[in-house]
């Protein structure tokens, strides 16, 4: 029913809509590149999303794959090849036609080792070259040396380049085209008049004439400008700002539910870390980690810090990731009494209310997080009080981000860390660099020569198995087991999953924020700017 109403609203808005208007919102940093295959930062990703024409698009609302420049596709040869049937009568922004040659050209550029493309790295499945075979102008086959897990979804990140255009990577097949870039100030995108999509009435999309992306790092200024009506949307806002705006004008803010972002803490289990051996023994103990986890009141964190716009986290995958999420069979409940009991059974004891280990060392550790992040500082203060209730003393240390990264990834001079995790990709393959024991982002003990524990070896095996399997359901079975082990062993203590919060101007029609990025403008070609009254009626 909700979807029917939404569709009706879209249709009504389309009928009443006029072409034109300039959508304005902020980038929080300078885009580092405009080359669509070299994107690694958020700002460049925004430009790539709005300008790039891709073969397959992940619908941000349904998370299903939708045909874009390819009308259909088929994975063959046991997952090592994909055949695309391409759309006819599509041209790039400079008028050059889109054909199978352009797909081949794009894949060659993407896989060129000299380009150092992070997007391309996701396609590297084994030793050997990626070959592209053009069967006809509208049919192309890409062959990989080994099966690539979740292959078709990876094409959501690959904008097509024109092989014939003299502008090369500046000729785009997306709804907008880069018009002007003023460093430190703004990026102006104008409507791509050659864009292939049309609306229900046959009108060529996008509706908007331009999108002005203003570079603004200060979040308070961004919010103030939004409130003055100078910006039309804020893609992602802090819970505190959301709470404030919703108290003033509830119709301006939108909570799309759990996002892919979560906050977590972990203990340093690196045997070479410069911390006392008795502390290393605590941190390696599953009982200790689980006791700490059980003593943290996640529901309070969601209520107090996030004003209810977050969920207690249950594991490495957010419920927003509909296919890959697996609810834990034994969810971590808040139970400090039981946690203390388990610790006492494990040899810890209480002296004047303070917990001591069996050798008599008081249980005390430092928790580092990045300075200036109010949400994390508050979480750390809450953890401090929660753990004090079971006799554990926590020293909260805020460090500037560079020092923090140096400690957790280079010299390992820390005991516990509180940080956030953002999954940009729904597929767990993108988390190989976290779960493999040899990976550099295996934060609790990175870059292991051999898995330090049996359960880490099992995670390695399962992650490799899911990566070499093409059948999605089979992959999910493997990754479900990974989630179960992580939930049981608690190397990461997942704290909260943040909700996807955005702010939208009443003048913005057809917006339907999603849980995954880019939340508020994922359907940019359908967005319409309209008078406020009309907008409020439709929304």
């Amino acid at each position, binding site marked *: 029913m909700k979807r029917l109403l939404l569709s009706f609203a879209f249709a009504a808005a389309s009928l009443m809509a006029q072409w034109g208007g300039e959508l304005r919102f902020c980038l929080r940093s300078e885009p580092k590149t405009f080359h669509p295959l070299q994107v690694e930062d958020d700002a460049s990703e925004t430009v790539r999303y709005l300008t790039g024409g891709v073969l397959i698009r992940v619908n941000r609302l349904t998370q299903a794959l939708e045909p874009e420049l390819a009308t259909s596709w088929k994975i063959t040869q046991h997952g090592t090849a994909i055949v695309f049937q391409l759309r006819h009568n599509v041209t790039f922004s400079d008028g050059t036609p889109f054909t199978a040659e352009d797909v081949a050209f794009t894949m060659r550029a993407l896989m060129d080792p000299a380009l150092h493309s992070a997007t391309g790295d996701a396609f590297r499945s084994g030793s050997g070259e990626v070959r592209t075979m053009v069967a006809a102008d509208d049919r192309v086959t890409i062959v990989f040396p080994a099966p690539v897990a979740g292959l078709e979804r990876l094409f959501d990140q690959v904008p097509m380049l024109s092989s014939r255009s003299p502008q090369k990577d500046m000729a785009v097949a997306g709804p907008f085209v880069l018009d002007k870039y003023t460093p430190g100030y703004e990026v102006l995108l104008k409507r791509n008049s050659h864009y292939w999509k049309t609306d229900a009435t046959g009108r060529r999309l996008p509706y908007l004439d331009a999108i002005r992306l203003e570079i603004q790092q200060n979040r308070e200024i961004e919010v103030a400008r939004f409130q003055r009506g100078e910006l039309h949307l804020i893609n992602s806002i802090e819970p505190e700002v959301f709470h404030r705006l919703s108290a003033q004008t509830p119709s301006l803010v939108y909570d799309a539910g759990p996002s892919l972002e979560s906050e977590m803490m972990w203990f340093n289990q690196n045997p070479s870390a410069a911390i006392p051996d008795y502390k290393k023994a605590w941190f390696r103990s599953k009982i200790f980690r689980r006791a700490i986890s059980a003593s943290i009141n996640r529901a309070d964190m969601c209520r107090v810090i996030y004003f209810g716009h977050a969920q207690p986290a249950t594991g490495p995958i957010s419920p927003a990731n509909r296919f890959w999420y697996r609810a834990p069979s034994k969810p971590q409940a808040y139970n400090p009494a039981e946690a203390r009991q388990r610790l006492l059974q494990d040899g810890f004891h209480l002296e004047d209310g303070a917990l001591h280990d069996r050798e008599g060392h008081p249980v005390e550790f430092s928790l580092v997080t990045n300075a200036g992040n109010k949400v994390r500082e508050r979480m750390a203060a809450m953890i*401090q009080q929660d753990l004090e209730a079971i006799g554990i003393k926590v020293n909260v240390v805020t460090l*500037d981000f560079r020092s923090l990264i140096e400690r957790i990834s280079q010299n390992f001079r820390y005991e516990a860390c509180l940080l956030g995790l953002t999954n940009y990709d729904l597929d767990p393959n993108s988390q190989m660099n976290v779960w493999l024991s040899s990976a550099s982002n295996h934060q609790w003990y990175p870059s292991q020569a051999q898995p330090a524990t049996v359960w880490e070896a099992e995670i390695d095996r399962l992650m490799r198995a899911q990566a070499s399997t093409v059948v999605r359901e089979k992959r999910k079975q493997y990754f479900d087991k990974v989630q179960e082990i992580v939930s049981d062993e608690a190397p990461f203590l997942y704290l909260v999953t943040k909700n996807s919060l955005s702010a939208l101007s009443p003048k913005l029609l057809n917006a339907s924020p999603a849980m995954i990025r880019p939340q508020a403008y994922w359907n940019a070609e359908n967005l319409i700017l309209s008078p406020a009254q009309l907008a409020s009626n439709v929304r």
Partner: protein
Amino acid sequence: MKRLRQIAIGVLALIFAVSLFANFVAPAPYAMQFRDFVSSPASRHFLLGTDELGRDRWSRLLYGTRISLLLAPAAALLSTIMAVLIGGIAGYLGGWWDRIVLRIIDIFLSIPWLFLFLIVRAMLPLNTPPLESVVLTFSVMGLLGWAAPARIIRAGAQSLRNSDLVLHARACGCRGLRLLLVHIAPNLKPVVWAQFWIAVPTFILGEASLGLIGLGVAEPLPSWGNLLRELANPQVLMSNPWVLAPLGVLVVVVSCFQFLLPQKEFAQ
């Protein structure tokens, strides 16, 4: 002016006394989180309301005032002693010694404090308890803050060295340490006092600035710095005017410190 000075002393003494007995005056422990009363307005139970974690603002203000008011003068004393030793002796001795000290002072003044503080903070052991951490914070500020007063004290010592009174003392056979301690040091006292009283509010504001970027006193210990962080959000200010209380106390205390300077020392 004398009356204003007396009032300033009275106000400072009152604030000192109340904050010193915070353990008895504060209605709740400064770290206690009343999570069902988050961001509450001022009430009978919470005189200045509660902060975003439900901690009693009045209690935190009392404890925070104690920390800032005790440690800022200590840091000011440390930096003033260093300034007297380095600047005073350089001004008295003159010559090469003076030139070398001047260059060192210039280097210290040109160092960006904030970045230096970031480095020092990053090098500190992580398991430092909050109270030791705050002492270290003020100590670092004291150790880094000697350069500006040293330049002024050096100038004072240099002018005294060339003054008629010192010339007269020398002519009478007074030399070395006796000349320094009996004839120069007493005449430098007003300048040194002025530098000390100026340094106190500077360090209070310095810690407040560090607190604003989350690098001041560690949680859960309150200080004026981390209490003032709430003011970073102007919208909160509109709805919860009682968050201004720490700022009010800070303004009163800093103003009172200025009135403590005698008129004669102001003029000098």
